[in-house]
C-alpha cells in the first residue's frame, strides 16, 4: 500500500507542527521519520494513521484521497510508544481484540481466532505468554505483544511511534533486527518515528529528516549520513566538529588549514562553518597538520575517541576524533601527546541556518590542497555510525 502526502499542514494553536509536507512512500518501504522532539514527526505519523486531521493538504492511500478516512478504514496498524496494551486483558485477549471486534459476518470463528493469535504469538516469540497480563511482561515483551496485536488485523501499513524508545540498549538492538526481518518477511509498508539517528540508519531503507515541521532531507541512510544537504541534517546524524571558516588575506581557513578552493564557499555569504565528523579527522605527527594536544582518550570497543586541544581553539571546544582500535594500538596515542590534525573530509554550510536556500552543496572534489595538509575529500567517504 503506497502513501502520498501533498502539502500536508497541521497547526496546534500558533505552533506549526507539520508544515506543508510532500512525501511519497512506495508500497513495501521501511521508512524512518527522524528528528528531535517537537519536529512534528509524531504528528505526521498520526496524520498518516488518521488519528489527526490535517488542516491543509491531502493524504492519498493507493492513489485514493484518504484525508478524511477514519483510522478504522485505513488498514493501518499503529503501535504506540508506551505500547498501550489493554491492562485488563491477557496477552491472548489483547492480540485477539482486533479480530473479536469485527462485525459478526466478518469475524472469524473462535477456533480460527485462537489459531491466528497463537501463530502471531509464535511469530513474536511469545507463544508461552498468552495467559499472562501486560503488567507481568518486560518492556521488550510488551512491545512485541503490541506488534502482534497490530498485525492481527492484517494491516497493509505498520506505523510505529518511537517503537524502541523505552527499552534498554541490548533489547533495542535485538528488536531492531527483528523488526527488519519481520518487514522483509511480511512485506508490508512500515513507517516508524524516532529521534535516534542510529536507529534510523540501522533499521530504515529510507530516512526522512524533519525539522520544525518541514522535511530537511529524504534519502537512503548512507546518503543522508554522508551527503547531508544542510548543517541541521549533518549535525543531527552523528557527531560533528564545528569550525568557523576564517578569512585571512582573501583565503579561507579552518585553523591553519587552507580550504580556499572549496566550491561550496562561493555559494553563500561571508559567514560559513565547516562540519567534520570525528572519523573524518586524521591524526598524524606533530609537524604534519594543525598542532594539537591529546587531552582525553576513551576506548569504546572497536573505536577510540580522542579529545584534541588544537592551537588557537578555546580549551572548552576540543576537537573530537575517532580512530580505529587497530590504529590506536599501533600508534599508542596518549594524553598530553602533541599531534598534527588533518581533515580527510569536511562540508561547508552557511553559518546562518536561514540562509540555506541552495542546491549545489553536494560534496565536490576539493580543489586546493594547501600545504599538502588536506587529503582529497571523497564523495562517498566512510559511512557508518
Amino acid at each position, binding site marked *: 500500500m503506497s502513501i502520498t502526502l501533498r502539502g500536508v499542514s497541521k497547526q496546534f494553536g500558533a505552533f506549526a507542527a507539520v508544515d506543508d509536507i510532500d512525501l511519497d512512500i512506495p508500497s513495501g518501504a521501511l521508512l524512518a521519520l527522524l528528528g528531535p522532539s517537537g519536529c512534528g514527526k509524531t504528528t505526521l505519523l498520526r496524520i498518516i*494513521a488518521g*488519528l489527526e486531521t490535517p488542516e491543509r493538504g491531502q493524504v492519498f492511500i493507493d492513489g485514493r484521497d484518504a484525508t478524511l478516512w*477514519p*483510522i*478504522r478504514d485505513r488498514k*493501518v*496498524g*499503529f503501535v*504506540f510508544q*508506551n505500547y*498501550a496494551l*489493554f*491492562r*485488563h*486483558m*491477557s496477552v491472548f485477549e489483547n492480540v485477539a*481484540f*482486533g479480530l473479536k*471486534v*469485527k462485525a459478526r459476518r466478518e469475524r472469524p470463528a473462535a477456533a480460527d481466532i485462537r489459531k491466528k493469535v497463537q501463530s502471531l504469538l509464535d511469530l513474536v516469540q511469545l507463544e508461552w505468554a498468552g*495467559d*499472562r*497480563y*501486560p*503488567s*507481568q511482561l518486560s518492556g521488550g515483551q510488551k512491545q512485541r505483544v503490541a506488534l502482534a*496485536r*497490530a498485525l*492481527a*488485523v492484517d494491516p497493509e501499513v505498520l506505523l510505529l511511534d518511537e517503537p524502541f524508545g523505552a527499552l534498554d540498549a541490548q533489547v533495542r538492538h535485538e528488536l531492531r533486527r527483528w523488526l527488519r526481518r519481520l518487514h522483509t518477511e511480511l512485506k508490508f509498508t512500515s513507517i516508524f518515528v524516532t529521534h535516534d539517528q542510529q536507529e534510523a540508519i540501522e533499521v530504515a531503507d529510507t530516512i526522512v529528516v524533519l525539522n520544525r515541521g518541514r522535511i530537511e532531507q529524504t534519502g537512503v541512510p548512507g546518503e543522508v549520513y554522508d551527503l547531508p544537504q544542510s548543517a541541521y541534517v549533518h549535525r543531527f546524524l552523528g557527531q560533528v566538529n564545528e569550525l568557523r571558516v576564517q578569512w585571512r588575506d582573501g583565503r579561507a581557513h579552518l585553523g591553519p588549514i587552507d580550504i580556499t578552493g572549496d566550491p561550496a564557499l562561493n555559494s553563500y555569504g561571508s559567514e560559513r562553518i565547516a562540519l567534520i565528523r570525528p572519523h573524518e579527522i586524521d591524526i598524524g605527527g606533530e609537524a604534519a597538520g594543525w598542532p594539537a594536544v591529546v587531552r582525553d582518550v576513551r576506548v569504546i570497543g572497536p573505536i577510540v575517541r580522542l579529545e584534541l586541544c588544537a592551537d588557537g581553539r578555546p580549551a572548552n571546544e576540543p576537537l573530537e576524533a575517532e580512530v580505529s582500535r587497530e590504529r590506536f594500538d599501533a600508534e599508542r596515542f596518549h594524553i598530553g601527546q602533541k599531534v598534527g590534525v588533518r581533515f580527510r573530509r569536511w562540508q561547508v554550510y552557511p553559518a546562518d541556518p536561514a540562509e540555506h536556500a541552495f542546491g549545489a552543496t553536494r560534496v565536490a572534489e576539493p580543489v586546493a590542497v594547501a600545504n599538502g595538509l588536506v587529503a582529497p575529500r571523497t564523495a562517498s567517504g566512510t559511512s557508518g555510525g
Partner: protein
Amino acid sequence: MEAPALIGDYDVPTARSLRERGPRQEIRWGRFLLIAVALAFVAAFLLLPLLVVFTQAFAKGAGAYLAAVSDPTAWAAIKLTLMVAAIAVPMNLVFGVVAAWTITKFQFRGKSALITLIDLPFAVSPVIAGLTFILLFGARGWFGVYLQAHDVRVVFAVPGIVLATLFVTFPFVARELIPVMQAQGKDDEETALSLGANGWQVFWHVTLPNIRWGLLYGVLLCNARAMGEFGAVSVVSGHIRGLTNTMPLHVEILYNEYNYAAAFAVASLLALLALLTLAGKSLMEWRQPELKHGTRRKGARTGK
C-alpha cells in the same frame, strides 16, 4: 569540636551532626503532633456524634426503635429516599461519564468553562439550588403556568426532589473520573480504533474497564450524598409527610416535634446507610492495589 568522642553509644554532636539531627527530631515531633490533632478531630467531630446518634436511637429501648422505624411515615421516607437515589445515581453516572469523556478525549472551545460549570453544584449552597428550582418550576416560576396547565407537579413533589438531588450530586462522578481519564490519555482508545473497534466497543471493552474503580468510587460518593441531601431537597419538597419527606427531612420533623428517640432511630438508619457506603468504598480501596495492574483474573498471582 571536630573530634567526636564516644559517650555511651552516642557521638558527641558536632556542628554537622546537629545540623543533621535537628530537623529530623523536629519532624518526628511534628508528625506526632499532627497525627494526634487529626485523631482528636476525628474522634470529637465524627465518632462522638455517630455514637450519640446510636445511643439516642436506643435510649428508649429496642421496642421504641422498631416502632419508630416501622412507622408508616418513616417507612415512606425510607422508600422515597431509596427511590430518589435509585433515579439520581444512575442518571448522574451516565452524565458524569459523558462529561468526563467529553472533557478528556476531545479538544474544543469552552472546555475550561465546562469544567468550572461541573463544579458549580459544589460551590453553590444547596438551599440556593433548591430555590432556583422553585423559581423555575414553582407556581409563580418561569415554567409554573405551563406546568400547571398540563397538570404536572414538579415542586413539592417527587420530580422536584429528584431534580434537586440530581443537581447537588452532579459533580461526584465527573470529578472522580476526569483525573483518572486524563492520566490514562487516549492511547488505549486510539489503539482500539486502529484495530477496527467502533465507538461503543471502545467504550465498553477499553475505557470502562480502565475507569471502573474511579467510576464506582464516584458512584458511592454520589449515592451517599443523594441519600443524605437536606438543604436543596428541603426547599423543594414541601415536607408532606408520607409523600415528599425523605429520611433527612423526616428526621428533622421528628426532632422538631421533640420526638428524639424516633428522630435518632431514623437518623441511625441513615447513618447506617452512610457507613455501609463507606465500608464498600474501603473494601474497594483494599482490593484496588492488586486490581490497579489489571491482574485480577486467574494468572494474577502466578507470575509473581
